[in-house]
């Protein structure tokens, strides 16, 4: 009983998060300007990280946690570099 409730709500959460990723991707493709695309990319990787965490809860494995941590770290550095590029036109000055 309790496993069924949890299983279904995790499935619904996966669908919601997947939908959120699609919507963020729409904004990323539509733009219109570079900063809009970067904000959408930021939302996209946070959503991907949450999706992996829900996957981890569904399978009961903590391996997904490590993957989520790596996505969070790399996504942060990537958006930071992109934002810096917008300001200055170069990343390493």
């Amino acid at each position: 009983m309790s496993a069924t409730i949890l299983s279904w709500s995790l499935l619904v959460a996966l669908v919601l998060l997947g939908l959120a990723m699609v919507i963020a991707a729409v904004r990323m493709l539509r733009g219109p300007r570079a900063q809009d695309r970067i904000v959408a990319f930021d939302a996209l990787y946070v959503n991907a990280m949450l999706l992996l965490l829900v996957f981890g809860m569904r399978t009961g494995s903590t391996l997904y946690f490590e993957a989520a941590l790596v996505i969070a770290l790399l996504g942060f550095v990537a958006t930071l570099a992109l934002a810096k590029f917008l300001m200055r036109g170069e990343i390493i000055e």
Partner: protein
Amino acid sequence: MSHAADLPLWASLIASFLVLLGASLTLVGAIGLVRLKTFYDRIHAPSLGATWGAGGILLASILLFSVLQSRLVLHEVLIAVFVTVTTPVTLMLLGRAALYRDRSENAADLPPPIRSDGETKSGDAI
């Protein structure tokens, strides 16, 4: 879901509620990203998913793994701290970058520069 077969009912109810709350807040944030009209409005949308959206899912994860392994599993706290520290940094930097770009293009509806000595941000050399 065989690993959760012996999960108590209260734990699965609370975890389900938290997961659904987090996922729907994240979805609302994403919808806002598409619906809102200007960039400065859109910059508010992702923080919805990064605060209580992530918070709900991480709390559910802590609860689920702690009950299943019958010890406190807290490593999700790391992601929570990391996300709350990094999201403001990226959004702040993006906001500044957008303001800088808009000012250098003399866009409409921008706030006046806040520097007191009359030297404007857009006057800075690249």
